[in-house]
């Protein structure tokens, strides 16, 4: 039987050691803590790939460097690399990243998601869908899609 998986043999990278966060010197409870690149990466690194029992970090779909951040202007852009060029899961992965960030970041944040240039056959079409707010909103009203996304966002039992 031919497996339905897009990528049957993904490369799984060795887990990067997690840096401990140092204590913040900011003790004023009313000043918002600045958000940094690592914090954003922490939100998305454990998102599960829709097809494999591995995280986006394991498969190097996202790395710390895939997060570009400007906290002063409340802007973040995540660039992700699908494991194969014809990955039809690319929009699902992008949607998972967006949903996770929407749920984790303050409302002031503007979020852009894109596939790493040159890594996907229909990258313009994927990027356009992922960044059309109306299309994303409509997609997230589809119960099947939401179920898939929530599955990927569930913390794994480690």
């Amino acid at each position: 039987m031919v497996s339905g998986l897009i990528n049957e043999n993904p490369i799984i990278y060795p887990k990067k050691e997690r840096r401990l966060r140092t204590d913040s010197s900011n003790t004023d409870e009313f000043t918002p803590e600045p958000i940094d690149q690592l914090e954003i990466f922490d939100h998305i690194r454990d998102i599960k790939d829709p097809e494999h029992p591995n995280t986006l970090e394991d498969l190097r779909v996202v790395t710390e460097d895939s997060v570009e951040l400007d906290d002063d202007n409340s802007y973040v852009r995540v660039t992700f690399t699908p494991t194969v060029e014809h990955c039809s899961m690319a929009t699902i992965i992008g949607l998972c990243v967006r949903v996770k960030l929407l749920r984790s970041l303050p409302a002031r944040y503007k979020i852009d998601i894109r596939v790493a240039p040159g890594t996907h056959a229909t990258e313009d079409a994927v990027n356009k869908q992922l960044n059309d707010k109306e299309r994303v909103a409509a997609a997230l009203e589809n119960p099947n899609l939401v179920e898939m996304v929530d599955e990927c966002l569930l913390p794994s039992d480690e």
Partner: protein
Amino acid sequence: MKLDLVEVQKLEGHSARVWNVAWNPAAAGVLASCSADKTVRIWEQSSLSRSWSCKAVLEGTHTRTVKSCAWSPSGKLLATASFDGKTCVWENFATDSECVSVLQVHESEVKSVSWNASGSLLATCGRDKSVSIWEIQPEDECYCVAMLLGHSEDVKMVQWHPTMDLLFSCSYDNTIIKVWWCEDEYGDYDCVQTLSESNNGHSSTVWVISFNAAGDRMVTCSDDRTVKIWGTDIKRMQSGEGYVPWTHLCTLSGSHDRAIYSVHWSRDGIIASGAGDDTIQLFVDSDSDSVVEPAYKLLLKKEKAHTTDINSVQWAPDKESRLLASASDDQTVKIWKLVSEP
């Protein structure tokens, strides 16, 4: 003389992002807002206190986000378009708002609804890439008289011309703005013009089309962060000369940092824009002496008009009040007044 956009009131009540606002063209101070919370709210201004309150909540009919709402020219009917694929027509707001018609033809989400100038026709469009035209008969019966195919992608908005039965549609696709016209008495609508990137058109999704009062200019806004002005010699068309094409006049760029979700041209010539950068901006004709190149300038930029994205801006239909309504992802509607500071 310095102008400012002053916040008059913040209308709270929706429990999810508000996508669209529409002022009633016949009843002063009445506006409708529609939301991802699946409801439409009707707000009215009290004649005593001059403040707005929610008079009715239209719920239970749409089962998904309500994306767009539009009043008929008489102000008696309100059409609402939803992601649930239905377009509903409501009436009787003073008593109990009643859904009198449900139009169902689109195969997926409906994005926009527009009435023609006489209120005899309704147009809708959606993600199924089609535009539909409906005739409104007595007793509010609606019949689908045309299904226009031609866009290659999701159609974001339909807008009838203010004086002629010309229908405009704009889209997620590269052939972005289409003009549809029924030239003969047989009721067949044809696409008489397509304005794409090669006609100095937008380079990404076009969200809104809005006309000036005279109907000889239109303004469009896009994901490409620009606002474009287009023009035509509408008098020639009105005198029966046949279709007169629209041409690009001017592109306004650099003032918005994110996608521009809405533009609206007031009766007295001011263009308002609302965007994902949380700002509302106003533009006017710069009265340049150049006849060859019409130019528009930024009149005013309101930063942090809402705490997040603005999805819709609309001027009140009268010329005197100078009121502007805005709808946002922050779940509120705001009423603004354009004032001159001494």
